[in-house]
């Protein structure tokens, strides 16, 4: 066990800067506490919704951040603490933007001895960059020698055609709205068995992983499960079966900033015990079913990385202003209910409210927390077109949301599941 004291100190610097950002943003008129006191249990890290790393003129909305320390594996001195890492229950693994990473991390190799590089897919584009090993510290939890992605590295600047074919590049802090992403959803790997070697099928054209020569000539490759980019939580030495996001409730229209906690572990300490929460088991894609407006939407999910509540309702007015394209702009507050159903046949009814997105933003230009912000996947002219209800960060406001990771057993069930 290495000495973690210097890393803890580095972590406190990060927390201090987070607190400053919170106060600087004028959050809720709370009194200023200049010196953070490390009273938290060791499995808790502070999280914040604020304008993000691109400043007030290019502010993020409903985007949750924390601070992460990465170190060269085994080192207690070659470390870097990075703030404004997005907390994302809709992805798996840590990704850092090369432009903010000052640490030199050792890249990993594909099975053919060339460098392992990943094309991470997002709905509107991709992030290209090599896989490297890092020790990860979040709060006081540590995971040793974890594969992470370094996005936008100059070492492999040439993107293979099959990767760029998925859309537009997202490899800068400006495009990302964060200095990195901490993926802590229900799965252990970012791709899983579809990218792993198989005796029955050729998985080399998986679209995610490539082996690249120094000259950036890349071909698709399989990667063993434990060499893929990994959700760090199962690799923590303790509190490694999942996490709980705890955020205060927010009344509409919202507030400037919001601070809460990310608690690691479920049923491992007194502060993360399961209680009377409803457990929704999720399927092999990480999804459950939402019943809304008589539609049964089987590809529904909870996602702290989505900045609103997203669903299709042809009767709800969309914003006409192109700056708010895809968001709803009803004349007044619209109340709804939906039913969430897990694959374990447990269900729970959820009320929610949609407000006019343009009014929310225009009347509250300093707010980064907008609990009634909602949008659509499709168009007003076509109903019932998506199979998805995406419960974004607003769902997390005002409750404790448990995310239990696959293959991990808590006191009440085995992951993958979500509970609240």
């Amino acid at each position, binding site marked *: 066990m290495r000495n973690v004291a210097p890393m803890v100190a580095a972590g406190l610097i990060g927390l201090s800067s987070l607190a400053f950002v919170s106060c600087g943003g004028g959050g809720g008129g709370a009194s200023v506490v200049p010196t953070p006191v490390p009273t938290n249990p060791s499995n808790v890290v502070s999280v914040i919704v604020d304008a993000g790393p691109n400043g007030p003129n290019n502010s993020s909305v409903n985007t949750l951040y924390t601070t992460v320390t990465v170190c060269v594996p085994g080192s207690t001195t070659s470390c870097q603490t990075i703030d404004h890492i997005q907390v994302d229950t809709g992805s798996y693994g840590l990704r850092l933007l090369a432009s903010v990473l000052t640490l030199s991390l050792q890249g990993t190799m594909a099975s053919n001895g060339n460098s392992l590089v990943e094309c991470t897919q997002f709905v509107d584009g991709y992030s290209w960059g090599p896989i490297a090993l890092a020790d990860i510290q979040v709060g006081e939890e540590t995971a040793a020698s974890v594969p992470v992605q370094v996005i936008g590295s100059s070492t492999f600047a040439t993107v293979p055609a099959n990767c760029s074919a998925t859309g537009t590049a997202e490899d800068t802090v400006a495009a990302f709205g964060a200095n990195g992403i901490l993926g802590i959803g229900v799965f252990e790997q970012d791709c899983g068995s579809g990218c792993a070697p198989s005796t029955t099928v050729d998985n080399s054209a998986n*679209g995610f992983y490539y082996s690249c020569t120094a000259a950036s000539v890349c071909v698709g490759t399989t990667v063993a499960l434990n060499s893929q980019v990994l959700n760090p939580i199962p690799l923590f030495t303790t509190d490694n079966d999942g996490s709980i996001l705890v955020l205060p409730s927010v009344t509409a229209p919202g507030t400037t900033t919001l601070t809460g906690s990310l608690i690691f572990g479920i049923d491992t300490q007194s502060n993360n015990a399961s209680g009377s929460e409803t457990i929704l088991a999720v399927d092999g894609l990480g999804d459950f079913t939402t019943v809304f407006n008589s539609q049964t939407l089987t590809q529904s*999910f909870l996602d702290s990385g989505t900045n609103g509540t997203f669903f299709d309702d042809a009767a709800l007015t969309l914003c006409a202003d192109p700056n708010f394209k895809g968001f709803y702009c009803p004349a007044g507050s619209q109340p709804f209910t939906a039913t969430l159903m897990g694959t374990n046949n447990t269900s729970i009814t959820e009320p929610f409210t949609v407000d006019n997105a343009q009014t929310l933003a225009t009347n509250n230009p300093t707010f980064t927390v907008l609990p009634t912000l909602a949008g659509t996947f499709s*168009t007003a002219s076509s109903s019932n077109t998506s199979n998805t209800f995406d419960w974004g960060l607003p769902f997390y406001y005002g409750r404790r949301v448990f995310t239990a990771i696959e293959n991990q057993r808590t006191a009440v069930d085995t992951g993958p599941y979500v509970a609240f």
Partner: protein
Amino acid sequence: VGALLVALVPRLACAALGEPESSIAGDLQHLKGSIKSTVRSNYRVHEIQLPSGTVLREFAAVGGNVFAIAWSGPAIPDLRQALGRYFDVYVTAAQAKQGTRRHLLIEQSEFVMQSSGHMRAFSGRAYLPQALPPGTSVDELR
């Protein structure tokens, strides 16, 4: 590897959306998938099972052109291949970012694209509204 890159270039011409139904064979070869075709009332659906585990469906008017594609699964398909000449429209619109990384909505008079999902679970579709066979509902295109 060099030969592979060269070989890819001419095949990019065999794009699907807006191209003749026969171009689907080019998709199949390029995407290394297996195919299953079914006939509906006024169009055919070609379902391509991709190596990634994702299913790509291409909707073609009988004897006509591909008017829609839809996909669902753990990875987004090769959209340059599947969208063909509309790929640049998609990229330009995606760069003018709206919403979040979890959804994309492009709505133009001749091209509509919707894409959503999260890591390991994507779905989406693109279609040409003016090319839909008469009587075809957008809801069928999934």
